[in-house]
Structure formats: structure tokens, C-alpha cells
């Protein structure tokens, strides 16, 4: 891989051992990819992952955040002195929401680790957004901007809806990018790799958030890590629908870029989206395919629901508004809990608008900073969960062992009120 003089100097240790390790990691990673060079970036989403479950199990001591960052984020066995980051840097999900530690049953050890992690992030200059949707709270990339983002649901949104350029990064490559302002110039950073490869002909109405999620879940499973071009859509997706479509496609498969013909910036026409080439494959999506995705996601059999999770990826303010409206004047069943997740900044907005009060009066919670599947937080004794997110429905059985129903937001709120799942594909 070709390095500039500055990059070579970083690799040689001119800027200290942490930056040297970061550049070493990037060059090994670039070589593994077959990248020819690095590209400059000033927009990194990742963070310090040492407080998350699993990672907690393999760190030898909670005391030294630099040592934990060195190991988990820079893959260094030796603790390094971590300097301030060089780029704009944004932290993703944390291990819990400090305003709801009791409800989330977050251990004292984890609470301390979160606090230490926060101090560490502040010291080195990582914005503690603590959300999987940085584009909702102050980090909207621009068209063509080179990104180094973790979070598969965020990068697919940035690539496809905005036209920014990046691949799905991991905790180590994102940390290395923060310290060096570089990332391998590979994959979706390169314009000719951004064309669609598979054509999806939609032959049924895709309108609700549930429809968009199911379309994404089906398409991701079929195309895996390739780039689908979706044709035949009748309705333009809003933020929440695009967010759910991409998150689902990046869960059942590894979709990092998609095109919606006539709707997304690099798909003014079908031909342009495909780069004037024939698609490798054409896939039809009709009612039968939507039904199949719906049935694949619904693994539960017991209609007695204990736990309803909304806001994966973290809810937009429109989603919070919808749920507040559905819950207004209602009470949750004594047998269920409903947790909704939104970024902390949007929670403040929801407070201002009175949505938080409506939600909490009904007996539900509007939480931030965390996520049941990733932070492993949930109410006690849950056996059966329900969610309006394909992504969360996919991960909950594997991460928390819950039998999980998937359905519309209305089905989910209804289950929270009645205690029974009565969802249907409509």
C-alpha cells in the first residue's frame, strides 16, 4: 500500500506510539483488503467499546481506560498513552442509560465503567452522542464526504440516502481513523464501486414502516453484501422508513449501499443506479416474499408478551410522536413493559413537546444511550418480547434468548396495553 510521507512518519512513530499503532493497524487492514492507499477523513463514528458486555468479560482490570482502549480499540497488548483525536469523532451506543439504571438493572460495575468511559471520551475529544443514529443528532454528512463509521444501520443510511462515502468500519478501524484522520480507500469510497448490482422489482405496495422493514429484511438475505437497486416503489420513504429499511438489509445481509430509483441521490434513473450495466440478478418482491420475511422474523408462539421494545435504530422524533399519540390516555397492562429508545438530544425535545410525559404516564419508558440487544438491558423475567424493528427482532433471540414477535408499531403498542400479541401482516 502506498503511504504519503506524513502517513509513513505516523507509521514510523513520529507522533507517538498510539498513533504508530493506529497507523500499523490501518496498513495491515488496508493490506488485508487489497487497498492501494488511504484517504483522509474528518468524520468518524465509533467510540470506546470497553464498557460493553462481552468486552467487559475479557478486560483484566476496569481501572485503566487507556489500557482498555489500547486493547479493545487499537488491538494493542501494551497499554498506550492515547492522545486527543484528530477528527470529529462521535460515540455510538453505551452500556446503559444513567437516567434509567434502576429499570435497566445496570450493575454498579458497569455504571462505574460507563462513567470512566465518559471521562475518557471527554478527555480525548469523542462526542458522547451514545446513539446508533448519529445522523439524527448533529452529524449529518455531506454528499461525497469520506466517512469512517461503525454501525451498519448508520453507514448504509449515509451512503444510500445522503451519498456520503464509507464502508462499515469496526471498533478498531474507527479508533485508528480518529487518531490518524485516515481510512483505507477501498470499497464504497471509490465511485465505480457504488453502482447497484442486483435489481429488486417491487410488485406490491410498500408504504408503512413495517413494509419497509420487511422489504429490507428480505432483500438483505437475498443479496447479502451486494448493493440492491429497488425499482417500482410507489411511495417515497420518510426518515424512519429509510432508517428501518437499511437497518433490516444490513442485518439479514451485509448491505452497505442501496439505491431507490428516482429517490436516492445516486439513482436518478435505473440505468444510472446500475452503472449502465445489466443487473447480476433480478429479484421480485411481492406479497408472498413480504409474508416470508414476516414469518422468518416471528419466532414466538406464546401470545402473552412481557416486553415491548421500540426504537431500533434509535427512534426519530416522528416515531416518538406516533407512540405518544397511541399511548395517550392509556395504561400498559400490568404484565408488560414498554421501552422506547431515542437519542438523548431527541429525548430532551420529546420532554419539551410533552411526549415523554404521555409515554411515562402510560407506564412506559423513553430511554436513551443504550439498546437491549447491544447493552443487554431488559426488564426482569422476560420470556416473550415484541418489537417493530426487524433488526431487533433478528437479534433479540440470539442475544437475550427472548421469543420475539415482530409487527407494526400499532401492533406493538396494542400488545403493551392488552398484554397479548395480536399482530398481523397488513
Amino acid at each position: 500500500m502506498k503511504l504519503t510521507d506524513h502517513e509513513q512518519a505516523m507509521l514510523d512513530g513520529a507522533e507517538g506510539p498510539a498513533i504508530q499503532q493506529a497507523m500499523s493497524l490501518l496498513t495491515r487492514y488496508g493490506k488485508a483488503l487489497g487497498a492501494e492507499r488511504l484517504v483522509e477523513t474528518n468524520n468518524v463514528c465509533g467510540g470506546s467499546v470497553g464498557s460493553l458486555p462481552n468486552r467487559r468479560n475479557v478486560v483484566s482490570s476496569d481501572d485503566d481506560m487507556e489500557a482498555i482502549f489500547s486493547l479493545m480499540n487499537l488491538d494493542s497488548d501494551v497499554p498506550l498513552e492515547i492522545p486527543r483525536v484528530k477528527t470529529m469523532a462521535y460515540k455510538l451506543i453505551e452500556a446503559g442509560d444513567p437516567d434509567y439504571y434502576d429499570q435497566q438493572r445496570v450493575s454498579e460495575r458497569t455504571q462505574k465503567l460507563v462513567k470512566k468511559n465518559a471521562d475518557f471520551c471527554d478527555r480525548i475529544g469523542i462526542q458522547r452522542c451514545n446513539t446508533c443514529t448519529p445522523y439524527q443528532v448533529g452529524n449529518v454528512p455531506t454528499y461525497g464526504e469520506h466517512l469512517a463509521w461503525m454501525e451498519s444501520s448508520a453507514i448504509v443510511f449515509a451512503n444510500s440516502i445522503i451519498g456520503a462515502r464509507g464502508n462499515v468500519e469496526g471498533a478498531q478501524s474507527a479508533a485508528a481513523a480518529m487518531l490518524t484522520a485516515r481510512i483505507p480507500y477501498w470499497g464504497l469510497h471509490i465511485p465505480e464501486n457504488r453502482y447497484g448490482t442486483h435489481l429488486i422489482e417491487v410488485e406490491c405496495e410498500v408504504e408503512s414502516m413495517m413494509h419497509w422493514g420487511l422489504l429490507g429484511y428480505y432483500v438483505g438475505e437475498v443479496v447479502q453484501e451486494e448493493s440492491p437497486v429497488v425499482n417500482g416503489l410507489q411511495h417515497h420513504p420518510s426518515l424512519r422508513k429509510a432508517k428501518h429499511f437499511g437497518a433490516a438489509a444490513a442485518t439479514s445481509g451485509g448491505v452497505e449501499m442501496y439505491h431507490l430509483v428516482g429517490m436516492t441521490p445516486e439513482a436518478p434513473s435505473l440505468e444510472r443506479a446500475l452503472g449502465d450495466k445489466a443487473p447480476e440478478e433480478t429479484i421480485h418482491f411481492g406479497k408472498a416474499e413480504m409474508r416470508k420475511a414476516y414469518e422468518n422474523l416471528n419466532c414466538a408462539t406464546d401470545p402473552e408478551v412481557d416486553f415491548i421494545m421500540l426504537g431500533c435504530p434509535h427512534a426519530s422524533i416522528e416515531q416518538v410522536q406516533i407512540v405518544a399519540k397511541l399511548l395517550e390516555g392509556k395504561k400498559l397492562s400490568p404484565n408488560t413493559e414498554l421501552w422506547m429508545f431515542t437519542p438523548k438530544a431527541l429525548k430532551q425535545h420529546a420532554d419539551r413537546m410533552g411526549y415523554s410525559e404521555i409515554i411515562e404516564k402510560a407506564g412506559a419508558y423513553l430511554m436513551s444511550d443504550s439498546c437491549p440487544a447491544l447493552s443487554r438491558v431488559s426488564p426482569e423475567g422476560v420470556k416473550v418480547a415484541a418489537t417493530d424493528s426487524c433488526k431487533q427482532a433478528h437479534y433479540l433471540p440470539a442475544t437475550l434468548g427472548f421469543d420475539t414477535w415482530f409487527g407494526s408499531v400499532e401492533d406493538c403498542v396494542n400488545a403493551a396495553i392488552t398484554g397479548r400479541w395480536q399482530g398481523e401482516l397488513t
Partner: protein
Amino acid sequence: MSDEQQDVIVLRGRGVVEGVAEGEAFVTSQTLSGFGGIDPMTGTVTERRHEKVGQSFAGKVLVFRGAKGSSGWASNFQTARLAGAGPLAVIFNELTTKMALGAVVMRVPAVTDLDQNPLEVIQDGDWVKVDGNEGVVEIRRPASA
């Protein structure tokens, strides 16, 4: 087993991570999720509809289609390494950033772009030597009658 009693197959491709290791093959034609797809403390596949659900690749040569899902892929496989539950080596078909970074932080020999599809050639239980320096894979199994 001596060579006389074995079939030996050699595949050539591109080394992704340097080093040489050998062991028993764990083969899946499906992609694997890191986060929500494996238990990194044991190397067991946990994804509900995965063909290998309940089985562990710990201490084996992981032969698979590639990485999918969450960007926590590399972190989960790094954690598996730290927990002593990682694979000995990896052979994969589809190159993505998740896969490349994951291979780097697993710190085991890794090979891709092989001249025959490893998912068709290699079977569970085959003895496989992975040379990440040269990009060569050597497969040994008891000679067929």
C-alpha cells in the same frame, strides 16, 4: 496418518493475514454474524436460523462464506480470541471490511480468493493447513476407497 493413506488437495489464493496454522475444518456455506451471531466466550454459533447453530469453531479452521451483520464483527471475533475461543485460521470467499478487519484482529492466518471454491472442496473434519504468507491451503483427509 501418513501420506499414503490420505488424499491431499492444494488450493491457491491470496494471503490476507500472515502466519501458518493447521487444524480441523469447521465449514459453513453461510455468512456469519459477529454480534448476535456467535457467543464470543465459547465460539458457538447462536443465530437462530443458521445451519451451524449450537456448534463451536473454537480451535478449528473456520471455512465460511464471509462476514455479515453488525459492525461489531471484528470486536466479537477479537473477544473470542481473547477468551481463547477463536478459530486457528480462517478461509473465506467474500471480502468485506468486516471480514478484513476481523481477520487482522483475530491474529490468525487468513486466506481468500482461492482457485477452487473452498466451501465445495473442504468438508467438516478435514485436516487443513492455512499458509497466510503464501496464500496456500492444504487439505488432507483419509483416502477414498
